[in-house]
């Protein structure tokens, strides 16, 4: 009997150890955001100074603003393109469809660096000036496939007869899409959007190639400062962002489960 009780404890221990290790670098970043010393090495004394200084560092704030703006814009555009595409690829046949169907998986499986340099080459070829616009285009190019696959998953799980029933009852194609298909695939759209947003916030490699010397995003700011040492205001900003995302995730989970509970009533 004793052994039976001990095994699950070992299992818990393993799971929480992996999680702890996964979070350790983030915990350390948070810890040193309260450190008075500019070096992320020895904890000298507790301070909130970096949270104040953060708002005086215009370069960092600018990078933060660009990062958020690009993430929001690229997510919104990718969600529209991705949703239309997923529905279009399922409902219509057209010339070259089987090729398009293969092409959309390329950004998912290809190392980001290859996509990054290909886009950079085309931007150079077409004389597009590197900057905010090219980073946005690049983020759209790697986000759309994730929205398509996510929407597609819910689309294929839809009961076929719901749409046919709407058609039988006299709904036009627009009405079927707007009032039947769209509400039903909403979970896929939302998870696709979350994925696109997270990917955009996390991206380093593609932004690195698509951004010109003038555009500053958070990862590029960190990358260019890492050799000389990064001041703890970056830690403070990371901490604040983490708090906001956790609150956002908790709220969305809360509302989702509430909506589910209401539907089931």
């Amino acid at each position, binding site marked *: 009997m004793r052994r039976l009780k001990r095994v699950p404890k070992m299992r818990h221990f393993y799971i929480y150890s992996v999680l702890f290790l996964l979070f350790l670098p983030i915990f350390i970043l948070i810890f040193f955001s309260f450190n008075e010393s500019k070096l992320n090495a020895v904890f000298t004394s507790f301070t909130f100074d970096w949270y104040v200084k953060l708002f005086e560092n215009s370069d960092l704030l600018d990078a933060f603003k660009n990062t958020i703006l690009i993430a929001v814009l690229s997510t919104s555009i990718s969600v529209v393109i991705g949703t239309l595409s997923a529905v279009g690829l399922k409902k219509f046949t057209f010339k070259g469809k089987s090729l398009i169907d293969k092409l959309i998986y390329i950004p998912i499986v290809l190392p980001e*660096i290859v996509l990054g340099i290909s886009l950079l080459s085309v931007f150079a070829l077409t004389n597009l000036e590197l900057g905010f616009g090219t980073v946005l285009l690049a983020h759209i190019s790697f986000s759309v496939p994730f929205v398509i696959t*996510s929407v597609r998953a819910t689309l294929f799980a839809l009961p076929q007869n719901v749409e046919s029933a709407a058609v039988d009852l006299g709904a036009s194609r627009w009405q079927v899409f707007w009032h039947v298909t769209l509400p039903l695939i909403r979970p896929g759209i939302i998870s696709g959007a979350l994925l696109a947003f997270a990917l955009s916030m996390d991206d380093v490699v593609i932004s690195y190639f698509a951004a010109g010397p003038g555009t500053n995003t958070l990862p590029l700011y960190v990358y260019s400062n890492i050799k000389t040492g990064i001041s703890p205001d970056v830690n403070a900003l990371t901490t604040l962002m983490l708090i906001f995302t956790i609150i956002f995730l908790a709220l969305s989970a809360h509302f989702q489960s509430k909506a589910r509970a209401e539907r089931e009533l």
Partner: protein
Amino acid sequence: MNQSPAPNYPQGRKFDVFKILFTAPVVIYATALIALPLLYIFFLSFLKSDNYGGYIFEFNLENYGAFFDSTYLGIFGKSVLIALIATAICLLISYPFAIFLRDLPERRRNFIMKLVMVPFLTNSLIRTYGLITLLRKHGLVNSALLALGVISDPLNLMYNNLGVLIGMVYTLLPFMLLPVCTAVGKVDQNLLDAASDLGANKFQRFLKIYLPLTRQGAFNGALMVFTPAIGYFFIADILGGGKAMIIGNLIKNQFLTARNWPLGAALSIIIIIFTFLLVRLYRKIGGNLDELGGS
């Protein structure tokens, strides 16, 4: 999942606004932002560099020949090796995690899976920067090991290949955890119970039941760990300290410092071929492309 049922919107007139709205975006997107860039670097890979960032229009295979130069081949081999070891370590961590997670109550399980996603929301470069504090000579890991008396001299955990490997595992582990946990979660409990009743021990259950039934999930994760790992130049830069170059650094240098785009393009084409072979293998074992990348 891949074969679509017959399209159930009527195929309308020749000029069908509805159809155009749903098909034009994906055609434009896939052509302009995927096909065109890849075709263009394929074309570039056969040109000659003028060493000033431009090219001479002279068809040649020299760039591909340069790949077989011992320096490049060495870096290529080392990157593949680091990526393979990182993939193997991620697999070794993920399987016990997924199997133990199966037995937890559903709510706890969902909560833990959400926690696994959270590091994604902090930029991977910033997380890598956080690792420096852990791994450097007088960092947390060495201090802890010294204090415990496990080691008498600090270990060199970064500015070498080991540092790059640790960085890859850290950054890419969630990409393995998610598909493996999903696949292991779907294994039928009855099969496991039947195996135990017939006298299979834990190890046999893993080999004969979990492994065959979850190999698609595992390969999905492996693809998602392996392919970024050969390109993440920033991890090699930060934790390898310039001494540990991987293919990603090599390509980056051709495009941004050496200004030899045709060579960089040829190296990228080799990676593309390599990746496509892996994807074919994934399809061959029955993997679904729609499940790649965590959807």
